[in-house]
């Protein structure tokens, strides 16, 4: 905990020192104390934004993780499906997220699901690809060994392929955590009333620099929470990682 907090405190100290020492115009970088005071003054509002965006990103992230791992397993089992569906996955990723966002908001309206859908859209693909790569990297001799013991396809998947792919899956999940946050924020740029994205947009366009920085800090907190959750899950599930 301290190891994580120390660099952040150091960064804040550096920030404050730069603002005072270099006499930076608050329009470009306000003092961290001013930002903190603004956040404290509107604490319930910022907390609400944190929780709203966190739940949108977490929901999209969870869906993206499940669909990503699920489709990679399906693709491994049925290569025909992989040949048919994976190209669609790839094409889907070429649609700019901002265009996709406009459509999603027309479909789902101003709902939590709309933002989660965009977070999902950004997260499922890296997970799919990395899971596939993780499974492909398994030594075929290990598969042959299990098969010689009479293991069925399902058991090989459960006992060998999936555990072997876990480190790569978690690498993808770490990347996806920040993508899910970006997805939720983009989703909130289409007329949301709550959340970090709505706050960022208002601060940007009203040129409220202090609340802009406050929003950035809240966004960082959401990203940090998601990332920490993935890291904790990884520590529990990939306990052998040190050996790799």
């Amino acid at each position: 905990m301290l190891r994580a907090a120390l660099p952040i405190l150091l960064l804040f100290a550096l920030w404050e020192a730069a603002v005072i020492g270099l006499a930076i115009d608050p329009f470009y970088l306000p003092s961290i104390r001013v930002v903190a005071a603004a956040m404290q003054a509107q604490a319930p509002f910022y907390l609400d934004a944190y929780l709203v965006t966190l739940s949108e990103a977490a929901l999209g992230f969870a869906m993206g993780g499940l669909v990503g791992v699920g489709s990679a397993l399906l693709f491994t089992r049925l290569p025909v499906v992989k040949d048919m569906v994976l190209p669609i996955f790839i094409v889907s990723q070429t649609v700019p997220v901002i265009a996709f966002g406009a459509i999603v908001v027309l479909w789902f309206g101003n709902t939590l699901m709309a933002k989660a859908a965009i977070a999902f859209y950004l997260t499922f693909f890296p997970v799919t690809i990395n899971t596939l790569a993780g499974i492909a990297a398994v030594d075929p001799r290990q598969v042959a060994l299990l098969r010689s013991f009479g293991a069925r396809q399902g058991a090989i998947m459960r006992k060998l392929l999936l555990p072997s792919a876990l480190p790569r899956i978690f690498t993808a999940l770490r990347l996806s955590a920040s993508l899910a946050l970006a997805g939720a924020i983009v989703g909130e740029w289409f007329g949301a009333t709550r959340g970090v994205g709505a706050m960022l947009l208002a601060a940007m366009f009203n040129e409220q620099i202090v609340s802009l920085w406050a929003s950035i800090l809240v966004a960082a907190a959401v990203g940090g929470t998601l990332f920490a959750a993935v890291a904790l899950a990884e520590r529990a599930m990939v306990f052998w990682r040190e050996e790799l």
Partner: protein
Amino acid sequence: MIQRRTLLAASLATPALAQTLTRVQLRLKWLPQTQFAGFYLAVERGHYRAEGLDLTINPGGPNIQGETIVASGAEQFGLTGGTDSFFAARERQLPVLCIGITHQITPFVFVAKRASNINNLEDFRGKRVTAWFTGAHLVLYGMLASRGITRESVNIQPQQVSVTPFINGETDVCAATWYNELNIIRARLGGDANLRLFAAEDFGISIPRDTLVVNQAFAGANPRAVEGFLRASIKGWREAKAEPAAALESVMKIAPTLDRAHQIAMLPEAIRLMQAGPAATQGLFALDAGVILRAHDFFVEQRVLQAPLDLAAAFRPEFLNAIPLAERMA
């Protein structure tokens, strides 16, 4: 016992009330600010509920086209760009109707610093002038044309949301709404004494903006709801004018990080634009056929509209006219 009976009564009464309310949504053209205070105040005070409407206000933003959302039927009402964006939507045959106009005159002006020696429109020649390319640029073209100044002789650039480039002197003239950017410029450059304003109306052009639109199919099936929406909105705006502090709070509650002083300054300017022109005699949200026709003809002349539109089919004053004029006067 009494408590249990009250609870029972409440549990029976609530669903019954909910059933009678029609769920509708209003999409704004921009982020929450006192430009829309009357609508927020009307929600807060239950005026829409009194008309049988369960109204949700959805803010707009840079990526949001109100007419498209309302045309899709996803939302029923919209406070959209203006007559310009509404004409464009009708030209694309989107099923939207205009049921009221909020800002009765062009809500923006072009601003120059007095120190830059730009004293009249002719002085725009060779200067860096910015305008929002969502419609304000056309007004600028029209203003220049009225003085026989060619567009090519002026360095016209698209304007971003921020007016900081103008304040810092990177541009010479910029567009500013009376209620928003102009207040920022006034505050940062020390008031009107240091500024020169160019209003479209002084050059024979008037483009009313902030149009209230409704989904055509919804209006056809629910004319009472459209009337009720207008009645509640007018009530909210009349109260916003009479009680600006309450109106301010209804917006600050939605967006507490807004700059309070800026929002206080915005409200009276927004109300002034709402009461200007035909609204002075025809009440809030007035749809004056003559004003609309002149704006329409301007866009036809500018070749923005390829062909004249059927204005009687697009602008529908019957919902407004169902409300007595006395109730519509602010």
